[in-house]
């Protein structure tokens, strides 16, 4: 057990190292430096800036310095905003991104799974039809379309919620809805079909033959099994909520990490691009590890041992 | 030549040994039964031979070739397994045709469908069953499909784990007749796990009796039918059996 986790974490460190190396050299392979912007700087000034940020050193020296920084959890200075470090940018955007992301994930799990259960328990009745129709729409329409249309109707026309910013709780409604819409629908459908399949199994008849209460059958025997396939997709769901947040934060003008990321790309703020990429990669790997642990806890048939590849 | 040669085979699940130092060998073309107490490790031995369990020490030789548990050469061409339960062992959403073609695809064997028809007729299934799904067939028919699948790539050795215990007597009789016929026609070697002594008697030349993870006796079919088994546990099995018939 411990050996397994030690190995997993070791592999994560190696993967992260490869990602760092790859992004670093990719960034430096792009022609033009960070200070070659549209409004030409005087050559002396550009030279001074390059010197200040160590851009005249040989590449491998820069690389080693960067690695050194990362080990001390320092992602370096931003090239665009003098005096500001990438760490600060991430910490600045983190509360907003984390909050919307967390709320979206909560919506996906806390609404999607119960909706799926509701549909499964009322198979072919109106509740089922209603949930499935909504879920089909949710899966079919891309989130940015939902976001734009919702923004237009609820914010501009009806004035029910603010068009941008997060000054009060209503500001979260549209971004969270747009972010979670697809995955909520997806999880609702998956929960429905998974639960229906489980409820058709022989061990459910056994549970009934024991005289168990229907709620006990549903939760202890039904859901324990039905959750297994749902948990396995939660990893990808988190990843997609993250990438989704780039677009959503842009549309709703939310000051989150995603927005910093998009801005840093148009600004050629290389260290910020690298920093955020690495930050996200690390975050994702941790999430996947958590999902794997959950998966193992739920399904005793999964063996930790890696000998069965 | 020996088809199977086991020496000091100890098999474990998660480091708990359940089979302790088993020794026996099965000649090429022989039919050998493993009988004995429930939970004594019969299926576990089949799993080790077929590669479904690699937590073992000792020696397994198949047709003279040693098997390394951690680094298996592909033996599925020479040996195939048939499982106890005809419901679970076939994929519910695949047709008989797909199920039978899979082993060919896995081993990259090209075939225009003649092999499928050949095997269907060998196991006594009409051509009409070729495009049916498992749930459209009876338990006995499904077990025929499972046997046909195992024979698709012409293995020399069949590992059979209680192939008839889920079937009623009449279907069991059909499957037993079929296995006997196929063995004769294709010169197969059988290693058959069963808890039913008469089934072993009908199908096998020799048998090993297991109890508590150990082989307590190896005897010939004649010794069993004449009631000349030596180990105490073997006689317990025979005794209860005779009682059952005698009453």
């Amino acid at each position: 057990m411990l050996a397994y986790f030690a190995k997993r974490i070791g592999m994560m460190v190696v993967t992260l190292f490869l990602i760092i190396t790859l992004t670093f050299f990719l960034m430096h392979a792009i022609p033009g430096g960070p200070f070659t912007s549209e409004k030409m700087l005087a050559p002396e000034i550009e030279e001074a800036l390059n010197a200040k940020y160590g851009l005249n050193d040989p590449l491998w020296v820069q690389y080693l310095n960067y690695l050194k920084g990362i080990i001390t959890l320092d992602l370096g200075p931003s090239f665009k905003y003098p005096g500001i470090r990438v760490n600060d940018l991430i910490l600045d955007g983190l509360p907003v991104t984390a909050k919307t992301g967390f709320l979206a994930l909560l919506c996906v799990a806390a609404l999607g799974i119960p909706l799926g259960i509701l549909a499964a328990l009322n198979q072919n009745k109106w509740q089922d039809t209603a949930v499935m129709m909504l879920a089909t729409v949710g899966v079919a329409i891309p989130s940015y379309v939902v976001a734009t249309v919702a923004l237009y109707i609820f914010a501009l026309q009806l004035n029910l919620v603010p068009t941008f910013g997060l000054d009060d709780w209503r500001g979260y409604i549209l971004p969270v809805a747009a972010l979670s819409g697809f995955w909520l629908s997806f999880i609702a459908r998956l929960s429905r079909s998974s639960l229906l399949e489980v409820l058709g199994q022989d061990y459910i008849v056994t549970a009934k033959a024991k005289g168990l209460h229907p709620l006990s059958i549903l939760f202890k025997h039904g859901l324990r099994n039905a959750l297994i396939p749902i948990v396995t997709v939660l990893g990808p769901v988190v990843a997609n909520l993250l990438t989704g947040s780039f677009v959503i934060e842009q549309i709703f003008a939310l000051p989150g990490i995603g927005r910093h990321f998009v801005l840093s790309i148009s600004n050629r703020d290389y260290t910020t691009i690298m920093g955020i990429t690495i930050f996200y990669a690390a975050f994702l790997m941790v999430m996947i590890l958590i999902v794997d642990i959950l998966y193992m806890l739920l399904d005793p048939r999964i063996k930790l041992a890696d000998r069965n590849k | 030549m020996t088809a199977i040669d086991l020496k000091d085979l100890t098999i474990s699940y998660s480091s708990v040994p359940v089979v302790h130092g088993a020794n026996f060998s099965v000649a090429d073309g022989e039919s050998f039964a493993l009988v004995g107490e429930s939970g004594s490790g019969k299926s576990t031995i089949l799993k080790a031979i077929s590669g479904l369990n690699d937590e073992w020490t000792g020696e397994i030789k198949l047709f003279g070739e040693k098997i390394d548990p951690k680094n298996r050469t592909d033996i599925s061409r020479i040996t195939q397994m048939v499982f106890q339960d005809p419901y679970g062992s076939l994929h519910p959403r695949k047709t008989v045709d797909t199920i039978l073609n899979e082993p060919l695809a896995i081993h990259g064997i090209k075939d225009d469908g003649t092999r499928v028809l050949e095997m269907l007729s060998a196991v006594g299934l009409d051509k009409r069953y070729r495009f049916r799904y498992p749930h459209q067939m009876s338990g006995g028919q499904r077990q025929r499909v499972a046997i046909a699948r195992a024979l698709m790539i012409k293995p020399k050795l069949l590992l059979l784990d209680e192939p008839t215990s889920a079937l009623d007597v009449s279907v069991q009789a059909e499957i037993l007749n079929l296995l006997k016929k196929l063995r004769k026609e294709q010169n197969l070697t059988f290693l058959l796990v069963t808890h039913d002594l008469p089934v072993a008697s009908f199908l096998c030349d020799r048998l090993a009796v297991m109890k508590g993870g150990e082989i307590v006796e190896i005897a010939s079919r004649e010794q069993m039918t004449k009631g000349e088994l030596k180990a105490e546990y073997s006689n317990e099995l025979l005794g209860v059996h005779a009682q059952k018939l005698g009453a």
Partner: protein
Amino acid sequence: MSEKLLEVQDLRVTFPTHRGDIDVVKGISFDLGRERLAIVGESGSGKSMTGRSILRLIRSPGRVTATKLKFDNIDLLDQSEKQMRALRGARISMVMQDPKYSLNPVLTIGEQIGEALRTHQNLPRKQVHDRVIDMLDQVRINDPDRVAKLYPHEVSGGMGQRIMIAMMLIPEPDLLIADEPTSALDVSVQAQVLDLIDGLIQQKGMGLIIISHDLNLVANYADRVLVMNAGEIVEECDASALKDAQHPYTKGLLAAVPRIDETREELPTLDRSQWDAT
């Protein structure tokens, strides 16, 4: 048969199909006292459906009808779902065929057996645990403490069957319906498990319906035998008279059983040509 534990009259199990309704059990009638009744017949003859219908466990769209279905003078067809729950497990329990699929893969053996007891009796944890271990021991499971902690995929086929039996005996029911309870057990363990059930019949006056395709077992163990074919009872006799059964279908089944000193090159089988019509 002093008192009637179960009375069944004109029991029908119907499934709708696209070709109209099909009766898989076609109006069978029988009574059961505090005795051992066996139901035999080939697969698909409706044995399991008969067993399940007594507990009203047939899934929709399947339907159960009968002119009489009484257990201990309780009209089972009249009971609410809630009243049925109080009977299931506690007074009538059923050993399911095929333990591999009838045990929940994500719960331990001990948990599943304990649950059968806790559902109907309020007992302290420790006592439940002790009873579970004791019950596993009674069905001849070696090392019950270890096995209680295992998951279903970690036990052998025969152990699964005994676990299923333990689970259904632990609440000490008045009627046990056992669907192929010992088909994966060797004769010696089988005899021990049947002795255990016998003990309960003697001590508690439990009634038993044993569904089996093992004709030797049935002939020696049961009191009475019903032979089913295609949803109907074709023959009913004392178990000891099974060997002299008259019906050609029963004779066919008997002839198909291999013997320990088998000399036949080929075993006779039933003519199944009517199956191939579908």
